[in-house]
């Protein structure tokens, strides 16, 4: 498996404070990689750095064999590196269908006159049907985000990312704010995506979710990677337990998790 995404020594600093420091991380093609860390560990900063929403102070981001460190977010998205947001960031003025359409359609400014008269291709329609079906939301295309439940809106965010047929899907805390049933549904959806050949990079602080779906897990604490390995290893890693529960919490939690 070749590396689809590779972060080399990524450092992000906000006014002298390192939110991410020398983060090295690899997402191989076809893999389901997780990044966990307590609140404030720098997870979302890392996603922002990878996707171009924040500038990196040093290091490099290689995606699909290309150094994309200097490219703006929209260009990274078009290259196939697509993210979702922790907070709901849907286009509230557009229907669910149009939300997904925006992610599917790309065109250059010189094609504007042609775009004004062009009809939508059926390939695009199929892709949107597929994306909605994948997240289990068929039949809501004509509704607007404000008419949906929080869990549904989260899934629309995932569907919008899927609609552009990404090479790598970055999910930033997809389970945040979901209830137990919705979280379980999400779990199934994510597993299903892997079967469709989409590589996934899941960022969450919900250790249970990450441990149950990911093949390979990185642990971030105070902006630095403190552990890396398969779920079984992460479960036992003392650094992980310390990062999550403090140094003294110790072994009983580790036993419980194991």
């Amino acid at each position, binding site marked *: 498996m070749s590396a689809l995404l590779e972060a080399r020594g990524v450092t992000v600093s906000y006014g002298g404070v390192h939110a991410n420091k020398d983060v090295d991380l690899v997402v191989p093609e076809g893999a389901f990689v997780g990044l966990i860390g307590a609140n404030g560990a720098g997870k979302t900063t890392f996603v922002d750095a990878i996707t171009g929403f924040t500038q990196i102070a040093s290091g490099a981001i290689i995606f699909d064999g290309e150094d994309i460190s200097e490219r703006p977010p929209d260009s990274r998205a078009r290259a196939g590196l697509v993210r979702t947001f922790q907070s709901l*960031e849907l286009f509230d003025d557009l229907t669910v269908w149009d939300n997904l359409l925006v992610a599917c359609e790309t065109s250059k400014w010189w094609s504007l006159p042609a775009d004004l008269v062009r009809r939508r291709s059926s390939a695009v329609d199929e892709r949107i049907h597929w994306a909605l079906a994948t997240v289990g939301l068929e039949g809501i295309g004509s509704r607007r985000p404000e008419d949906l439940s929080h869990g549904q809106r989260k899934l629309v965010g995932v569907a919008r990312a899927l609609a552009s047929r990404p090479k790598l899907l970055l999910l930033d805390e997809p389970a945040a704010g979901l209830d137990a049933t919705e979280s379980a549904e999400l779990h199934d959806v994510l597993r299903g995506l892997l079967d469709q050949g989409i590589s996934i990079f899941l960022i969450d602080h919900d250790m249970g979710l990450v441990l149950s779906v990911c093949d390979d897990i990185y642990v971030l604490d105070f902006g630095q990677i403190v552990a890396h390995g398969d779920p079984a290893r992460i479960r036992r890693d003392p650094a992980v337990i310390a990062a999550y529960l403090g140094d003294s919490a110790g072994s009983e939690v580790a036993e419980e998790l194991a």
Partner: protein
Amino acid sequence: MSDVVSTEIPAEGQPVGRPSAGPSLNMSRYRTPLIVAGLILVACAVLSTDRQAVQSVLLGAGSGALIAALALGVVVSYRGSGVVNIGTGAMAMYSSYVFNTLNTEGSLLLIGWKIHLGAPMAFAPALIVTLAIGALWGAALYLLVFAPLRGASPVAKLVASVGVLLVLQAIVVLTYEATPIAVTAKLVSGSVHLPGDVIVASNQLLLAGVVIIVAIALWAIYRFTRFGLATRAAAEDERHLSLLGHSPTLVSGGNWVFSAMIVSLFAVLTAPINTSIDPSTITLLIVPALAAALLGRFTSFGYAVLAGLGIGMLQSLIQYLSIKPWFPQAGGAPVPGIAQSVPLVIILVALAFQRGGVGSRGSLGSVRLPFAPQPKYVLPKLAGGLVIGIAGFLLLGSQWRLAETNTIVGIAICLSFVILTGYVGQVSLAQMALAGVSGFTLAKLSTGALGLGFPIAPLIGALGAMVVGVLVAVPALRARGVQLAVVTLAGAVAIENLVFTNPVWSGGLQGASVPPPRLFGFKFGPTDPSSLGGGTIPNPWFGIFCVIIVVGIAALACALRSSAWGRRMLAVRANERAAAAAGVSVAQTKVVAFAISAFVAGLAGALSGYRFGGVTPQYFGVFASLTFLAFAYMGGISSVTGAVIGGFLVTNGLAFTALEQWFGLSPDYAVLVGGLGLVVTVITNPDGIAGTWRQIGRKMQQRSQRSESSPPSDGVAGEPGATAVVTAFAKGSR
């Protein structure tokens, strides 16, 4: 082109990438003011050899004090309520009339009525009464307009303040006419001799001193009092303020009263220096005041005052230098408008150095943008519009045809607002300036040596407007929302004074003439004789020509909304971060919207050039831009239907002609109605009249659907409610 945008794309209200470092850490915010102050100092040092130059700089202290006071007013109301109040200058202008009426007539000006009190009032009591009235206005404007908008977006608040400007100006124009009236009051006489034989009138220095004292007092109030603390807390997050037991209404309202009193005080104090007042001069001082306030990031009193004084002095110096032989000449006179362009330059420099946005603050409630529906039944609607428009010109009498022409041109201008403001959410206060670029280009090309005719000259004109529009869009890639509105306002003033009044480029204050259009020998200018219309002007063929062009523009706007570009524009309007994450180039989308919108405004400018047989700086002036914005909003800023309704409402359009013909209402009331309508629309009904119409249509459709009961199918983009009328129309046409 997509590389122009920086990698940081903050969402409205939540800057990413750089969490706000404490103000003490962030030195870069002081950089621009320091650079500007340094430049002014260097300029002063160079000019110190020239006694008259120094004198002219000091002569600018008076007008600088008023600019500084307006900047303080802007900062105070912004800190208190998050509103960048474009109407601050109009509030000052209104107070100067209140004072002068008391001082010369002994009458009290209450809204539009004068109440005679007795003998003319002396300076001091008149000033006190004026300040009291100013305070009332401040409180009333906050409670009636801006308190209801507390949860609205910063841009919506700014647009409402444009309505305030229009209303205040319309009241004064309706009461006093637009011509200047003399001010007889005296502040202090005498002059001060400074070293180096420099003589300055004492009142100039006094004013500069007073405005600095006011700034220091404000700083102390905000620093040390409970009220100041509450205001600073409100600027962070109004929710927290109410949790702490303060009333946001009281805090914000108090700041509005402060703001109104400060600008009223200086409007009164500076009026004697200028010896006359008129409805537009002080109103437009908002532009340099905004530049000064922007240098202080809308929060610093010190920089606002220093920059305000500096701008006044610099403008005065430029005025003096313009008599020098080396000053650029145009048509045997100094190039006009350079002093008026100073604010634009300052704003652009400030934006180039400052990072992060103005206008992001925590507030109560959620932001709702005007709904931009997917147009339905486009072809029947456009065909219907074409038929009705042409029928109007064939059947109506001379006066109604004139009104219809104004409406048709107005629709085109409103459509340019729909594309930019409605679709992509960027507010431009310079649409008429863009129209004017096209109009003056048309005049230049079709007269003189070039002699280019229809349709090449108007097309080049519209393309010229497009080029200028894209140039405007470049700062827009950095400046968003409120800042963009400020840039375009300053740009409109600069273009009007620098380009349109330039006798060589344009035609001076009188404007330039535009010969009537000809196509293969067919004469269809508005004054060309024709067998249609009973031989009266305007020639119906010209009207029909306008209808065809504007239906074409409407088709363009509908196609744009339904296209991938339209979806991208709405995505950018809704959420720039999410749009970028979905692969949309925010920069490219904005530039395209600016280009199309400017092209449409340019076509409208060319049409109005033909319609009047000429172009004037006034027609394309900044007040025209603001008034058209008002009508576009009233009609419905985010839909083509709204633009059509807006076109009916414009000054001298069909609606006002009807009101004049049937009810005897003077067309002078158009601006007042526009301003009031704008305020009411922003507060109560952001979708405008078109939105109301749509809702009625939806209700009627639901009623009819209840009997048919057909469930909506999946994958149909757009909202279900077209208007009942059009639904009926479409059913009939099948």
